[in-house]
């Protein structure tokens, strides 16, 4: 083997899977905070205030952005190699993939990235004060909950948000078990459990993110 720096396919995949598992954990925290708005807008505002002021979260958000960046960069590098590895395709090719959404990870990934930028523009940048439009409470504090509620009054935006979350759900369905497989954590005894847990995670997280805008739009809460 030559001595020049070399990051093997497996090394890149391991980084991707570790970052992916990190992002999966982040989504659970994000969903837990979002769900507060279904119970009480003040709780949600307190949660948002905590996230916006706690020093640990402030440092950690940059780690999170780094995690996103690594996941995306390695994902794109791996995908380009995959496209190049079959210069001429088949005339007739059956759907042989056993993990149905695995075929579309790069596409759902790109859509999630676009959604993420829009999402940051809608909420995070407003929260940071980089974009105006933050509603204020009666006492003059930031009313993040009202910002969310205002946005989810628009049917078109709710529909867009729900479609984006569903596409993210497809990404998550493959992601969970795939990360375990890449890290070598596949054992005949536990594999069905890991697969089931991954699918349950994808369904619960997707439904969780979908019901919040729908409940707000249809004024169920």
């Amino acid at each position: 083997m030559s001595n020049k720096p070399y990051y093997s396919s497996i090394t890149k995949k391991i980084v991707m899977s570790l970052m992916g598992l990190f992002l999966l954990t982040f989504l659970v925290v994000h969903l837990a905070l979002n769900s507060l708005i279904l119970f009480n807008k003040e709780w949600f505002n307190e949660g948002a205030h905590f996230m916006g002021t706690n020093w640990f979260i402030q440092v950690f958000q940059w780690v999170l952005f780094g995690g996103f960046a690594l996941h995306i960069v390695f994902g794109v590098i791996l995908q380009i190699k995959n496209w190049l590895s079959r210069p001429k395709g088949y005339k007739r090719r059956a759907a042989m993939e056993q993990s149905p959404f695995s075929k579309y990870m790069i596409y759902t990934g790109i859509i999630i990235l676009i959604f993420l930028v829009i999402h940051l523009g809608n909420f995070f940048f407003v929260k940071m004060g980089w974009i105006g439009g933050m509603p204020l409470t009666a006492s003059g504090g930031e009313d993040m909950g009202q910002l969310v509620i205002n946005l989810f009054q628009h049917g078109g935006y709710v529909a867009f948000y729900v479609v984006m979350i569903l596409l993210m759900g497809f990404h998550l369905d493959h992601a969970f078990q795939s990360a375990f497989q890449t890290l070598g954590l596949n054992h005949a005894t536990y594999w069905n459990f890991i697969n089931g847990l991954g699918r349950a995670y994808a369904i619960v997280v997707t439904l969780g993110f979908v019901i919040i805008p729908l409940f707000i739009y249809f004024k169920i809460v």
Partner: protein
Amino acid sequence: MDLKLKIWRQAGPTAKGQFVDYDVHNISSDASFLEMIDILNDELVEKGEDPVAFDHDCREGICGMCSMFINGHPHGPEKATTTCQLHMRKFKDGETITVEPWRAKPFPVIKDLIVDRSAFDEIIQAGGYTSATTGGVPDANAIPINKENAELAMDAAACIGCGACVAACKNASAMLFVSAKVSQFALLPQGKVEAKDRVKEMVAKMDELGFGNCTNTYACEAECPKEISITNIARLNRQFIGAKLG
């Protein structure tokens, strides 16, 4: 049976290549797929045309030479079966059958349905062996091996290196092949001595040759004629992590 065939014809490695339609008649449903191609080739030779070039050897499903991509599947639509063991009764009378070579950058077409799979040999040369010292023949039972590992190693060693995993994978990844070859040694005491170097060298060679990356779609396992399990890929990943961490 009467069948319509759409076969990839390519005169040589740099020739353009195209699909050519053929009709074959009165094929026995008991004929193997290769025998059906033999009949077609006899007819082509009688007409003075170039017969369809294809790889084959043992015709018993154990050598790994046959390599046709039939109706969208490597080795055809029947599970756990090589092309030579595929029989025409698996097709419908009058059916149109599309036959293509394996498609992957490291498997260039030599002619028609024959591809150059020496990339697999290069991966084996990179580390798929144990160093043997000369001397007397050791006693087979001198090294204790537990039953479970012996079985798993044997399952991995069932890989015939046909390349169906690469052909099936949407990324043309060779991970199932490499994982089987790494596993068959990693599970046995004789292979443990060189395990770390083996996995690093074989993975490096696999990457260098231009195979794609595994994205855990598991098409390889579903299409492998020897049903090599994807748990071998997980073992390969574990071996690789272990080797890299020292």
